[in-house]
């Protein structure tokens, strides 16, 4: 067997073994570089948060002093917006409490109606809510390591928007939509971790990428031998 034929056979057999994965790598990679990462993150789905008003800002020092002297173990007193009203979020060793910033009264626990109103305030689009439910067990893959409980609020829009909202603080934990889910699926195909979609050190990827390197090198070798032997055309077999 001539070395040119050996290079060709190597390239052909490695192509049979891992050629499909090279097509998957280039396709998934192309999607990931073409679609803007800010769109994948869903930045366009979220409205600008409300700015605090001057009276709210002016009262903060007094509220913070009073709160800190009333209760011990407080680690943070925070003033922020919650669906158009100022709230005080108190973080202590016992957990997190929300107070109405105007009255100082403790906020009622966020029920489904309050969560849906909040979701609408976070959402930049105009579609209606399709469904909402409280997740307490079995975290979906798409929220990653974020702790439950979380409300899942689905919108009836073309993006397939889902907002995840904390039932305790009312904060937007994360947002997902179809382009993100496609990205995540293609990422799984790209790193060949079909379970957790995060282990880039898995043996399948390692073995296939070594084979792919041999495929590329054999192709380069074959190309070199072909280009330096100009009498015969590319791939013409005897």
């Amino acid at each position, binding site marked *: 067997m001539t070395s040119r034929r050996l290079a060709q056979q190597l390239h052909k057999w490695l192509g049979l073994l891992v050629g*499909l994965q090279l097509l998957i*790598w280039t396709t998934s990679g192309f999607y990931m*570089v073409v679609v803007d990462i800010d769109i994948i993150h869903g930045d366009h789905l979220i409205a600008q948060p409300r*700015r605090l008003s001057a009276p709210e800002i002016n009262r903060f020092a007094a509220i913070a002093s009073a709160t800190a002297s009333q209760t011990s173990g407080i680690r943070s007193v*925070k003033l922020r*917006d919650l669906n158009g009203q100022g709230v005080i979020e108190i973080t202590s060793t016992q957990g997190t409490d929300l107070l109405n910033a105007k009255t100082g009264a403790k906020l009622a626990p966020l029920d489904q109606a309050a969560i849906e109103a909040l979701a609408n305030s976070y959402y930049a689009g105009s579609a209606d809510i399709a469904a909402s439910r409280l997740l307490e067990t079995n975290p979906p893959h798409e929220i990653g390591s974020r702790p439950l409980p979380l409300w899942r609020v689905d919108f009836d829009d073309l993006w397939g928007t889902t907002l995840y909202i904390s039932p305790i603080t009312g904060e937007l934990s994360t947002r997902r939509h179809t382009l993100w889910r496609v990205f995540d699926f293609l990422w799984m195909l790209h790193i060949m971790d079909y379970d957790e979609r995060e282990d880039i*050190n898995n043996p399948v990827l*390692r073995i296939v990428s070594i084979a792919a390197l041999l495929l590329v090198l054999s192709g380069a070798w074959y190309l070199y031998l072909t280009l330096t032997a100009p009498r015969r055309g590319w791939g013409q077999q005897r």
Partner: protein
Amino acid sequence: MILRKLHKWLAIIIGLQVLIWVSSGMIISLLDHHIASGDKTRKSVPSLHPLGSVNGLIPVARLPIDHSAIQAIALQRIQQQLVYRIDQGSGQTLFNALSGEPFSITREHAESQALASYTGAGSLQILALLPDGHIEAQGHGVVWRADFDDEIATRVYIADSDGAVVAHRNRHWRIVDFLLMLHFMDYARTHNFNNPQIIAIGFAAFWLALSGLILVKRSFRKRDFGWRAVRR
């Protein structure tokens, strides 16, 4: 014939980048991610400390910032001082809540945060302040860098604004960071892979792979596998 020509010419034009993609991806996969990510030397440091007694707070309205842009204000205690953490959407700014002066941590606090988060076997050698925009700061503003003399040359990064542990990086991380730069064709080091050069060459690579796969299918005839292959 046209497929062979396409495959050959695409290989000539973008072959080098395909070689870079496959080899950088392979090396990243072969290197242990847990070492490169810094997880092996890092433990979490509590970020919030008890407020304790709160007296003599300066009104937030007196802070030298654009008040119309404030989205949230928090009162916290960092390195024994009460601070206002102001969120203006574009980032957070901290002020001493008693004096109203812009807050930043001391060298001693940066050192204690670095040591508290570090679980490796090395000891702290150099503690340096990197200015805003420094290539290693990666958008975290002014950061402190603590160099440890362990076998993977760990560097711990601490935010000067609030003492938060920004990252643990090491020799493996620097190799992976370099390989990712090549993999993403991010020569300007913007840490963004939506760049025109990768889109153009990625498009060509798709056709290189597709034409190659079709050629594989064509070049294998039934006789390569069937009983004839054995008899030949």
